Each structure stands twice: as C-alpha cells, then as structure tokens.
C-alpha cells in the first residue's frame, strides 16, 4: 500500500507517515496514532493508524464529496 502523506504543521515538510524511524524505538509506538516529522520532530496525527480519526475523516470527506458532487452537477 502506498504511504499516506503528512505535512508538518511546524516546518512545512511533507513526508510519508510511516517513514520516521523514531517509532521503531518508542515504547509507546504500538497503537500510537502519532508520527514525528523527520526534520523538526513535531508530532502529527497519522490518521491511517487511528480508528476513530479514520471514521471521523471519512465522515468529513463524505460531506466534502457530497458538496463537490452537487457543484459538479450544477455545472453540468
């Protein structure tokens, strides 16, 4: 599966969520939904790893698709 991308809130670096090696040494990594930016270390949410966040983002993206679809229909 291709990696999800995360843009760091602090330094703006975009990186694949699973890339950072810190997770491998972290004792809290199991079940952790966070990921650390390889450039500045800031912790961002890795939506793919969180069940709740996945559901929430799906709910929001369904709404978004709904809006966009109606816009396209209007255009046509």
């Amino acid at each position, binding site marked *: 599966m*291709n*990696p*999800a*991308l995360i*843009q760091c*809130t*602090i*330094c*703006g670096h*975009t990186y*694949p969520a699973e890339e950072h090696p*810190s997770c491998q*040494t*972290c*004792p*809290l990594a199991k*079940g*952790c*939904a*966070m990921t*650390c*930016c*390889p*450039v*500045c*270390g*800031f*912790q961002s*949410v*890795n*939506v793919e*790893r*969180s*069940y*709740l*966040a996945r*559901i*929430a*983002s799906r709910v*929001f993206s369904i709404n*978004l698709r709904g*809006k*966009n*679809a109606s*816009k*396209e229909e209007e*255009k046509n």
Partner: protein
Amino acid sequence: MNCHTTTQPASIDTEGSVALIGHPNVGKSVIFQRLTGQRATVSNYPGTTVEVMRGTARSLALTTIVDTPGVVTFPPVSEDERVAARVLLQEPLKAILQVGDAKNIRRTLMLTLQIAEMERPMVLALNMCDEAKERGVVVDHRLLSEHLSIPVVPTTAVRGDGIADLNHALKTVQPPNYRLKYPAELENALAKFGTHIQHTPIAARALGLAWFSGDPITEEWIAGNVSGEALLELVALRDALQISFVEPLRSIIQQVRLEYVENIVSSALLSSGANVQSFSSRLSHLTTHPVWGLPILGLVLYSLYWFVGVFGAGFLVDLLEVNLFGSFLNPLISDNIHRFVPIPFLADLLVGEYGLWTMGMTYALALILPIVTVFFLAFGIMEDSGYLPRLAALSNRMFKALGLNGKAVLPMVLGLGCVTMATLTTRVLESKRERMLVTLLLALAVPCSAQLGVIMGMLAGISLTATLIWSSVVLLILLAVGWLAARLVPGDRSQLLVELPPLRWPILSNVAVKTLARLEWYIKEVVPLFLIGTAIMFTLDKTGVLAKLIQAGRPLVVSWLGLPPEASAAFLMGFLRRDFGATGLFLMEAQGLLTPLQVVVAMVTVTLFIPCIASVMVIAKERSKKTALAMMVVIFPLALFVGGLLNRLLLLIGWGL
C-alpha cells in the same frame, strides 16, 4: 502585446500524467492530497536525490498526478528546479496544473506565461483565495482566464474549496491559444530555431525561448536530440542574436513577459489590498513580537487554563466523576460485585479502595479523560490556527538565555503533549549537548498534557494566584537548571527554521480528527497502565508494604513537604505515570484533605518529579542507562527539595493555610 492563434481545441487523451507546478509554499502538496486522496508513492527523480510524489487521481480516469518540487526561477538554478523543468520537458504529460498564490498574482502569472508558452493543456489554480480575500486582494479570475485562454480556478485547498471545479477543468482542459510578441529580431531567431528542431516535447517556440534564455535543461535536451552540426548552428544563432541587444537575452524575454503580466494585472486585479493590512496579518506579526508576543502568550495560557482547568477539570470532571461514576456507576457496580462475587479478596481487587474499577477505570475515564479531551481540543486549535509555530518562534527568543535556542525549543513545546515522544524528537537536534540538555529539562520540568490538565484543574479550584505561584516556581527551576547545565556543557547551537503558516480560524474537521486520534492513543496507553498501577497498589496494600512505605516516607512527605501521609501513595503512583500520581492528589483535594498551600506544594513537587516509566525507558534507550540513572538521581531529590523549600516559604508568608 498578444494575439490569439486559431489552434483547434482538442480534448486530452485519457492516459498520461498531470504535473503540479508552482512556487514553493503555494499549497501544491495540499492540492495533490485533495486530488489523490492522500495516497502517493514517493521516489527520487531518476539521477537525482530530489523526491517526486506520484498518486492516482480520484476523479480523473487513468490519470497520475505528479507533484514536482517548488520552482523559484525558470530557467532553473537549484536541483529541485531542474527536476521540475525535466518533468515539464520530458514526461508524457497530458496536462499541467499550475498552483499559484492568489495573494501574489504577479509572481504567479510570470510562471503561468512561461508554462503557457509550452502550448500544453494547462489549468491555473489560484490557491489561498481565503487569505487573498482577507488581505483585500480581489482577482477577476474570469477575465484572467480570457486573457490567458486557460481555465483559471480559484481554490482554497486546505478547505477543499474549488477542488471539484479543478477536477472539472482538468477533464476538459485545452492548450492555451495566445502568443506573446517578442522584439522582431527575437521573433526571426525563433522562426529559424524552429527549422532546426523536429518532434519537440513542448512547443518549439517555448523550447527556443528557453534555449535563448540559457536554460541548462533545454540545452541538455537539445544536445541529445539534434546533430552536432545543428547544435553548432543553434549556438551561433544565439550568439548572433545576443549581439543585437545590449541586455542579456534572458532579460529581454523576461521584460516582454513582465509587461504582459502588468497589462493583465491592471485589468484583472480588482483590488491589490495594498492599503489593507488584515487583522490576521497584524495579529500574526504581534504573536512573534518580542514584547507584544508575551501578553498574547499570557492570554493564550489564561484561555487554556480556563478551558482546561475550570471547564474541563471543574465542570466536566464534576459531571462524570461525581454525578455519573460517584452517584450512579460505582455504587451500582460495587453492589453487584459484592452480591455476585463471593470471594472478598476478588471483590476488593475489583471495587475496593485500590480496585481495578473504583480506582483504575475511574481515574482513567472519569478524571483524566475529560481533562485530556479538552486539552487535546485546545492543542488542536492552537496547532490548526497556526499559533503553535509562532509559539516556537517566540520561545526561541525566550530560551536564548538558557543557551537553548533553535531547534532545541521545539521538543520543549512538544513536551506539553507527551514527554516520552518529545524525548524521542530530541534526536533531530544536531549536537549531543543540546540533546542532553533538552532531555534533562523535559524530564525535570515539562509536564505532559494529562498531568498539566490535572494540575490546571486542581489549581483552578483554588485561585489564579495558586496557578501563578506554581508556574513561576516551575519556570524558575527550568530556567535555572537550563542556564546552569548550558554552562556546564558548552557547545554549538543549531538554528531553528520554522515555517510560519498564516494565522487563521481553525477548521473544525481538522481539529476533530486530531483530537480523536490523540484520545484514542491516550486511552490505549493510559487504561492498561492505570490498571497495572492499581494492581501494584492493591498488592502493596494487601501485603502491608504500602503502609510501611507510607510510614517510611513520612519524614519527607509530612515533615518536609507538609503534606498528609496519604500523599505518599500518590507519589508512589507517580513513579508509573506522573498524571496517575497527580490524579491521586486531585482526588485528595476533592475530598478536602489538602489546603491550598498543600495543593501548590504537591503540584510543584509532582511536576518536578521523576517522569513516567515510559519516559525513563526512552531516556535510557536514547542517551544511555547511566545517563538516565544520573538524571533520576538529580531529579528526585531536587523535586523534593524545591517542594519543601516552597512549603517553608509559603508558611513564612502565611499564604494558603
């Protein structure tokens, strides 16, 4: 200056790629994620170390979206720009999607003209329209579209606005059909250039302009695609053309483009916003100001204190702990356990004083969960609004006195989320000295989110003065230890590079997703640990060891810190997790067992106390076991010493008795 040609519009084929091109920080990556659904393969562009992302478009059949590195200038100078130029010149593109900053329309259009001259199907996404609007920049995108003969789509990618229109435009995109008129000598040279070049990947005219501008990527392509004799003729053509002008050819070409851009801007830019400095940009400036930034920080911290301490730890905890757990759930479960579990030992393990439900689950769900929920919500708002990077920039100045500026500030700020993870992030620091100093300060004086929430809740129940005493003492210790350690361990400092995004209203969906992810992680981590901690306390209690430990801790806890003997149990729990210990003290305060003075002393001591077991493990792993042990040897007596000293000082002035 321009004339429209009569190129027949042709629909693009269904296979190939769409390249995203644009200046740095115009939101290309966000548009890429919107178009591909956050899925991508990342690989180095062949022959380079520059990463290029590719992903499958969600709404365009058989289309790959290629996200190129940001371009500052064309002809390219950096390796990143060369890769972007190579993608344009060498990839089988079916369309180009330029992402431009709506706030900086001139710079955007200069790049648009260069890309449009390639005569490939292209769309211009005028991104960050929300910020442009805030700054009073108004662009007539329809007029712009007419001038350029390409679709111009206003977007605010972070909100997903305009993405549907972008997808629609990409489905029906056509090559632009306008042509700039350059000086006659240059036009003649372009015509001659065309006779030497066959089967060009982009319009021969655009290739010619790039050749005359001295573009190294074009030179590289031409050298590999024409005969040696033709190459010599092209070089001679360029040299001869240069003789006709005083200025370099590149400047002549840019001048024509610039004039055309000014021409378009004069009609399509309805308002430049030059006289309008938006509230957000003024506020943004103030947040990092060395003087004005501090009262703003104070206001943010006060809001955090009110939201987390008063609302979360006061109102919400009261609702859950007193009303739901205390009055309903716990009596119900306790009654049923006692009725259906005939073995008193087992019943005690479940619902006794140190019961898995009455202590472990009640602490985790009724006390900590509401507090961390509001804290994570507040943290998410600070993050999404763009305040957090500003806090890092402001702290950078403040921490200079410690010898801890630059990147070292970030883990300190991040420690407010989770000290364990912040300790791991110290590996981004370049020098060993900084890694050591920050790890020590994190372990000593930076409370994690859960602990901070509980502390705020306890202090909010007393007064603002109590909060100010606690924060002043902790900050003083942080500064003193940092200052001392920085002088004992000399060395270089690494620079902090923070990208300040615009200050904006947080987006509800972003904050909700982040808060839920953090909560899920917290519950997964905290519930098992709280249950283990409770089981340990239960065992210590049943074996009589707890009573002996409380008795042994009496001189320190009662005589030195001035706390009730039961507080020893809370400090014992603090060895497992600092918030576990703080919650024990929280409950003691709720039961009226602590005076305001004792609360402040206990909170200062528990904040400076040994970090949780996970943090100690990370310190041992990241630094060394010896370092971890040395740190604990320093931290443990220091926390008790400061707590006791504060107790005596407050007793002396008669505060909080």
